[in-house]
């Protein structure tokens, strides 16, 4: 039986062998055929020589989360060959270099051998040893185009696109691709029973990584200053900001830049620069990962108490610094939500797609200005560094930035008395002024908490307490401004609460659970603090699963702590292996809970 547009292919390569562009073209070709795809780059913290895997999932149904089991393995790395072969599902396919001859399925007689003499083919065609190495990747790409029935014109078109302006590279690439394609046609049974066909499953969606999306959002949101320190997996966000800004933010008359990017000496300095800029009314951000957030916490506390807008993108990874920096997790929630000393809390946003990376990045600057506090956008490696299918970005030209409560010179003239921390509107947010505004009015000295409502130094207990209470009122205001949760409520007793990239496998997991007679309402949290919608949803459900990608159930802790709900009401569904959570994990853990607790289902499991 032939299946179309439904498989997982994994490329096992050696880091630095030039496989990334070939594998990327493979994914893009499927995408251009209209097939929903998800890509996952599983790579070591290393530049050259260690194993790296690239996984592409094609799914006509649009299931784009990680799925266990590999249907087609392109095994190009001798070091991991055994485990790569072992990971293939029964009936799956093993593509490998059989230049040395022989069936190399090891003991897996249940899988199909797709041996291609890659080394021999490139040796006969190319002289240059470097080209021989690189073009092995292109040869297997050509073979796959035949084996999977990929539109050859689309792939060759991408080569021309990728090497635009470098014509001497286009021809040998296409030659290499044809070598592989011919071999597969001539010596193998092509196409395979697993294959692709053109689809309309993609629609108008785009394929982009979350870091680039967030960088574009920062540009659209009016960020002018980016200060950062290199750290995987956030680096590509700062680099994408600079790259896009160099095209979108240069004054056409003067060729001068309407932005500034500083690669700081460390994360502390990066956050200090953001705060100095925010204090002066420029929209500024930094991008980092967990260890960077740790280093920024003192400054985050200053910004919280001094009430300075700042935006921080935390592209989460598996901790700690000496841990698995190139693997994904959602494990910085607590360290970000309560970052710093003293009673501090910071709003968090949880994007789950490149579109939301763009939208939340843009709106985070409005929120930071409105709330005069740091806003932390909780991205992760899975979303940030992989090409993800996404709704196209949209901007409304009628939209204008919310710069919050800033008194300009004219407004200062109109008031009798300026008090930086007076709660005039009752929302906990004072009016601020920017340096240089007025010769005699509105200047104040910014400190942490040792000041009164007029920013005059005091260590009075009453002034301190009043200030802290006002900050709580501001926190209540934040609850009404942050993005609402996305709720699907069909009056089930049970529900699942999740956020960020746990969205990716969720529709598949829910469909599988539904097949097992388990219907769940869903709430995808999009922000912290939690507003009324979150409380209401929780109140009306008896069984509450909280799915997330960390060991300690950090979102569960936040819900318990902030909403003062009995912890026993929340059942954790957890994955923390460093890959992204799969539909299998969610499905299995919930099913096991239903079985262990003899909970009723709509129908019995069909065997």
């Amino acid at each position, binding site marked *: 039986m032939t299946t179309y547009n439904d498989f997982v292919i994994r490329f096992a390569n050696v880091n630095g062998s030039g496989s990334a562009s070939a594998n990327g073209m493979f994914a893009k070709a499927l995408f251009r055929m209209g097939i929903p795809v998800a890509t996952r780059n599983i790579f070591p913290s290393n530049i050259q020589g260690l194993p790296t895997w690239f996984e592409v999932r094609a799914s006509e149904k649009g299931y784009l989360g990680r799925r266990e089991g590999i249907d087609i393995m392109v095994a190009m790395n001798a070091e991991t060959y055994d485990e790569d072969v072992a990971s293939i599902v029964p009936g799956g396919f093993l593509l490998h270099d059989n230049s040395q001859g022989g069936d190399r399925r090891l003991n897996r007689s249940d899988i199909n051998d797709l041996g291609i003499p890659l080394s021999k083919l490139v040796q006969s065609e190319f002289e240059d040893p470097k080209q021989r190495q690189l073009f092995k990747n292109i040869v297997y790409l050509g073979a796959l185009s035949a084996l999977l029935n990929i539109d050859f014109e689309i792939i060759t078109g991408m080569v021309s696109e990728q090497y635009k302006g470098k014509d001497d590279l286009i021809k040998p690439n296409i030659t290499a691709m044809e070598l592989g394609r011919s071999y597969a046609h001539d010596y193998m049974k092509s196409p395979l029973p697993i294959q692709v066909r053109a689809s309309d499953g993609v629609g108008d969606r785009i394929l982009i990584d979350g870091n680039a999306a967030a960088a574009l959002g920062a540009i659209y949101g009016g960020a002018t200053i980016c200060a950062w320190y290199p750290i995987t997996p956030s680096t590509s966000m700062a680099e994408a900001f600079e790259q896009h800004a160099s095209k979108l933010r240069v004054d056409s008359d003067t060729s001068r830049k309407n932005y500034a990017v500083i690669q700081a000496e460390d994360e*502390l300095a990066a956050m200090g*620069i953001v705060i*100095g800029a925010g*204090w002066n009314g420029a929209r500024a951000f930094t991008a980092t990962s967990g260890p960077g957030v740790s280093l920024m916490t003192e400054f985050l506390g200053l910004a919280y108490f*001094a009430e300075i807008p700042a935006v921080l993108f935390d592209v989460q990874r598996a901790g700690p610094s000496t841990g698995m920096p190139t693997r994904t997790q959602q494990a910085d929630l607590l360290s970000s939500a309560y970052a710093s000393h003293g009673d501090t809390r910071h709003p968090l946003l949880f994007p789950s797609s490149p579109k939301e990376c763009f939208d939340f990045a843009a709106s985070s600057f409005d929120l930071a200005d409105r709330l005069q506090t740091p806003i932390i956008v909780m991205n992760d490696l899975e979303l940030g560094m992989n090409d993800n299918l996404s709704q196209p970005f949209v901007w409304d030209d009628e939209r*204008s930035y919310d710069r919050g409560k800033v008194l300009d010179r004219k407004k200062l003239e109109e008031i009798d008395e300026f008090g930086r921390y007076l709660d005039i509107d009752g929302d906990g947010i004072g009016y601020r002024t*920017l340096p240089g505004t007025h010769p005699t009015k509105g200047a104040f000295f910014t400190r942490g908490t040792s000041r009164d409502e007029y920013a005059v*130094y005091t260590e009075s207990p009453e002034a301190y307490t009043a200030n802290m209470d006002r900050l709580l009122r501001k926190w209540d205001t934040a609850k009404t401004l942050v993005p609402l949760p996305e709720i699907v409520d069909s009056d089930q007793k049970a529900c699942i609460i999740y956020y960020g990239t746990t969205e990716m496998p969720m529709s598949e997991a829910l469909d599988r659970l539904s097949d097992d007679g388990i219907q769940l309402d869903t709430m995808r949290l999009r922000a912290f603090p939690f507003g009324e919608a979150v409380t209401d949803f929780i109140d009306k459900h008896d069984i509450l699963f909280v799915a997330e990608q960390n060991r300690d159930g950090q979102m569960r802790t936040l819900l318990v702590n902030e909403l003062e709900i009995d912890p026993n009401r929340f059942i954790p569904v957890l994955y923390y292996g460093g890959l992204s959570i799969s539909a299998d994990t969610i499905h299995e853990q919930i099913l096991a809970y239903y079985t262990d607790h003899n909970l009723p289902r709509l129908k019995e499991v069909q065997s």
Partner: protein
Amino acid sequence: MTYVSKPEIHHPLLPVNEIGLNRRDYEGSVSTLCAGCGHDSVSAALVQACSELSIPPHRFLKVSGIGCSSKTPAYFLGNSHGLNSVHGRMPSVATGANLANRDLHCVGISGDGDSASIGLGQFGHIVRRKINMLYIVDNNGTYGLTKGQFSATNDLGSTSKKGQPTLYAPIDLVSMALQIGASFVARSFSGDKRQLVPLMKAAILHKGFAFIDVISPCVMFNNHDGSTKSYDYVRQHTEHVVDADVVLPTEEITVDYKPGSKESVNMPDGSLLHLNKLSDDYDPYDRVKALGHVQEAQERGEVVTGLLYVSQDPHDCHEILETTDVPLNALEESALCPGASTLLEINQNFR
């Protein structure tokens, strides 16, 4: 405002500067530092320098870290915005502030603990980045707020109040600034206002990173015999090399200096920087020789003061980054947001 209890009324004959403001308009709240603290003299010198330059007070911004020195921005320029940040991190805050608004004069106040210990990394990197600002270190060789621990600028062998010697070699911020490439480097003494005020004026007008290390004795913890940061020691071991003064475009040249060879340098705002070389073999345009001179003097236990180095072709971070002339915090939305139709094209690039 940060004014605490200064009388509103001032003497009617207090002289006014070119924009009609008197010195009181450049003051801040009453200092809470110890009587006789060198830092108060630095603040007073800054008040005088800013006033004499006739720059409106609100066109300055003040940043500091943590420590006695870092409290002082509350005590001058009360009509300017100030930010007392976290320990050792003033340089990064100053960087962000200057990137956001290049039109304001940025004055950073730090101390020897703040810049030479916890903030040494940030100090080095702001020098590299050439932020257009005046960076002052009130250098007293001791941690005053925590009651008298040695700081990293204290000279080897210099003793504590109880007679304990410093065990480690000093970090010399002037040498570091010279080595990393500051375009204006000076050292002065809080007790020598006649030298300090003109240096501050020149540094404020300098377009680039200007650093002044001000030896500023701590009367409580580091002003005894055996200390190399005491009033007496500094007075007895000072070598003046180059005095400097700024002559505004509208002023007459009336520099009254000890005899020496004089030179003038054009400043970006049209004023002139007058240099008075007190030592014939000292060349304030030669960074490498200046570094050697400072190091040699340090070996002898001498404190070299004055304008140690000024670049004849300074650059600042905005030039390096090629940012627009309009302060980044003042750009209109139309200059910031590429708009809906551009976004449609961007989407197409990801198809």
